[in-house]
């Protein structure tokens, strides 16, 4: 009697172990998301620890798993200490239940496999990685703790959800914008010409046609981007919602002016530009004058050597200069000193200015050389015979005649230097930066704009900075032009 009792008891107790689970229901829904299929299955009996569910997929009905690809696994095991991510937090979503219809998110072990506790009856997994639009067969294989595996019948499904609409950038608005700009420029030129013609004021009937190609090329390519930039400065454009910006008036400009260090960076930009242009033109002039005499032997060699900084790509020359100025670099070896210029705000400022001077002299020297060549030599000879000394010859003869060349050169030089990005970016990247919220000690306006645009992503504010730079330069150039009568035609 006892034995029978024990036998029956053990049978009842061991029953769960011997009971192999198999899939009793299997459903699939292909309409849950792009490349996703929802698979729901349940077993006929509560699963035991050690059971593994394997999801297989194939293009045809799965008879043997050899011909199919394993998609994923769900293990039945000990879930203590495992993370249990909420729906949507993990790479895919799986839930389980004990047959009571209450779905609970699964646990995940260290390598990402889904783990459910024992007694689980139903599992609902959103399968990812399903090729879209084609018919897929799915089957679940149950591997029982006794290593017995039972494959469920296949179920077919297809992921029918389509991908998000890709936003196609239309170019027709831009063609329209460019076209209208081009047209308005042409019309404007015609109107001006007609007005002049009517009043008989012009000295040539074709003046406007002469400038038309250049103005058209300029306007078509650059007016639109500049106008766009100006418009952008009045919006709150930011990289996290490009295309969805809205106009916010002059708020950006207020941000710009109230940035700590605004005056410091503007001041340094002005200092940078003025010192550089003065040095460029000063040294350029001296060198051009030195090279100007015909009986200088080796003149071509000197000139070519002096033009070299312009020939070498500035990227490498600036980086080499940086290496030279470092404490271990050649400058200290050369001077016998022990300076760490780049680490000190003022030292770094001096260094970047010196490097930019080095870069800019060749161009000025060459342009002024060209201008000097055009001056008549007999003028000088006459002066020399008259006994006028070198300095006076320079100040009263050379300089006035060079004016028509020096004025555009200095103006353009100022504008280019004001917006010279490369040197400072490569040399110090605006540093050393001792101010937490503002520009660094060698930042000029344009390098700071770059930081605001690309590091912070605040395009609206960066555009406002750009407009501020633009206005500063416009005001400066207009006054300079007027003061030097640069636009006068010499008659």
């Amino acid at each position, binding site marked *: 009697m006892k034995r029978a009792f024990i036998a029956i008891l053990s049978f009842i107790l061991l029953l769960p172990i011997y009971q192999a689970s198999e899939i009793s229901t299997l459903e699939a829904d292909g309409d849950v998301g792009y490349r996703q299929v929802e698979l729901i299955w349940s077993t006929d009996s509560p699963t035991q620890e050690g059971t593994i569910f394997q999801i297989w997929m194939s293009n045809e009905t799965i008879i043997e798993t050899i011909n199919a690809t394993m998609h994923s696994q769900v293990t039945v095991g000990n879930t203590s200490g495992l993370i249990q991510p909420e729906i949507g937090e993990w790479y895919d979503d799986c839930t389980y239940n004990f047959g009571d219809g209450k779905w609970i998110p699964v646990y995940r072990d260290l390598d990402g496999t889904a783990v459910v506790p024992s007694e689980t009856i139903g599992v609902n997994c959103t399968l990812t990685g399903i090729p879209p639009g084609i018919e897929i067969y799915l089957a679940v294989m149950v591997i029982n703790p006794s290593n017995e595996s039972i494959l469920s019948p296949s179920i077919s499904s297809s992921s029918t959800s389509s991908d998000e609409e890709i936003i196609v950038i239309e170019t027709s608005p831009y063609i329209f914008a460019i076209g209208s700009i081009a047209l308005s420029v042409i019309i404007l030129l015609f109107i001006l010409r007609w007005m002049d013609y009517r009043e008989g004021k*012009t000295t040539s009937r074709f003046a406007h046609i*002469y400038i038309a190609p250049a103005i058209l*090329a300029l306007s078509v390519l650059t007016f639109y981007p500049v106008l766009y930039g100006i418009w952008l400065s009045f919006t709150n454009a930011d990289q996290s919602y490009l295309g969805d910006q809205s106009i916010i008036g002059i708020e950006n400009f207020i941000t710009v002016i109230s940035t700590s260090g605004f005056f410091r960076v503007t001041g340094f930009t002005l200092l940078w530009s003025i010192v550089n242009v003065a040095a460029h033109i000063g040294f350029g002039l001296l060198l051009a004058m030195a090279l100007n005499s015909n*009986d200088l032997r080796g003149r071509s060699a000197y000139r070519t050597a002096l033009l070299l900084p312009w020939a070498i790509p500035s990227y490498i020359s600036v980086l080499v200069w940086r290496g030279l100025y470092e404490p271990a670099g050649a400058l200290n070896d050369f001077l016998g*000193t022990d300076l760490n210029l780049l680490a000190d705000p003022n030292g770094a400022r001096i260094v970047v200015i010196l490097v930019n001077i080095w870069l800019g002299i060749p161009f000025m020297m060459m342009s002024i050389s060209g*201008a000097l060549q055009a001056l008549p030599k007999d003028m000088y000879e006459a002066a020399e015979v008259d006994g006028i000394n070198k300095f006076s010859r320079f100040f009263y003869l050379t300089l006035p005649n060079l004016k028509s060349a020096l004025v*555009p050169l200095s103006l353009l030089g100022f504008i280019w230097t004001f917006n010279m990005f490369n040197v400072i970016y490569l040399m110090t990247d605006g540093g050393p930066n001792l101010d937490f919220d503002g520009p660094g000690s060698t930042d000029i306006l344009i390098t700071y704009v770059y930081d605001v645009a690309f590091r912070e992503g605040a395009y609206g504010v960066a555009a406002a900075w750009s407009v501020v730079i633009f206005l500063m330069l416009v005001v400066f150039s207009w006054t300079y032009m007027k003061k030097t009568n640069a636009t006068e035609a010499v008659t």
Partner: protein
Amino acid sequence: MIGSEKSLSPVFHDDLASRWYIPAEVESLRSLYPIVVMINFVSLAIFILREDQDLIFSSSMQIVVSLVILLLLYKLDQGQRFIRDGVIAISGLSLLLCVLQFLSGPQIIIDYWMLGWSLFPSLFAIYSVSKPIVTLWASGNQTTRSAELGLYRNRSVNRFHGKVFRHVALTHAVAFVVLPILWILDVALSPGNSLGGGFFDSVTMEHFNHILSSESFWIWTRNSVIVSIGTTILGLALAIPAGYAFSRFKFRGRDYAMFSFLLVQMFPGVIILVPYFLVMKALGLLNTSVGLILAYSVTALPLCVWMLKGFFDTVPKELEEAALVDGCNQNNVFWRIILPLSLPAVAVTALFSFLAAWNEFLLALTFNTSEEMYTLPVGLASLISSTGQAWGDFAAASLLVSLPVVVLFVIFQRFLIEGLSAGGVKG
């Protein structure tokens, strides 16, 4: 001394040549010594940074001495023989200081250079001021005839001094300019890929070989050449008529048009990259050479137009009018007369356009992201890896990129000189 002055006065004060005659040597010294003083100040600054007490002291003394010499030189006039003697004496003092400085052991090149700038001027001062001609002048024994001879002699002496001075100045400039380039050459020729090491200690051509044998390099070069030449041609084609019009004609909107060329340069490019990109895309010019040519021509336009206008301004209108009267039509006037005269300006403009296109990086990268259209700057930048680059290859490639430009410079210089001969028409 005072008496001797008085006895000779009637001959002097009425004679132009004698009154205005200063020996060339004295003039040159007067121009030289301010520079010597400046260089002495620079030396002082370096020694202060070096914190070397002895050298600071000797350098300060040198400054004082040079200032005194300068002062004396300006006071030096005919009949001031004792000042002339003073100059010699103080220069001797300066020489002594130089010897002292030398004895305390200059270690590096720059010490020798600073020494040289105190030594040679002093020697030159002593030498030239003791010359008989200067002695004659300083002692007040100058006659009219010798003054005239002196003025005549001045010309050739000044020319000689001018040449020497030019060479000295140019050598200094070249040294300053060429220093980093020598460094780049060193990196390009050193084995391995670091940015340091000894100066020209080992030489290898491996980097140049590596770059020259890579197919991509030649693709980049081809693209750069096409784009740069195209930019030069298009830039000149657009700028020359415009420059001519601005120079010669008065028309409504002229000032504003000239100003508009500048406007575009003023707006920082950072923000306008995306709309610019879209404009190029709308025109279908992405990944083409034409797109870059257009973009670069427009970038170079402001300088080209303004420069050409400035040069056309210097060509006198009378020339054109004379030619027109003679029966040439406007066209011929332009091609045959104006253009050859402005050849230096056109050459400068062409060179500038070429270089603007050759060295430009950002637009080339933004508009042309397909590798076959990369220009040299973009290709060069792609040698940079995320973790620091192969400096040897990079330096070699940079030098190779600069070579065509240097060749252009040499060619360009001939245009500058030729422009001179064409100027024979003027005046």
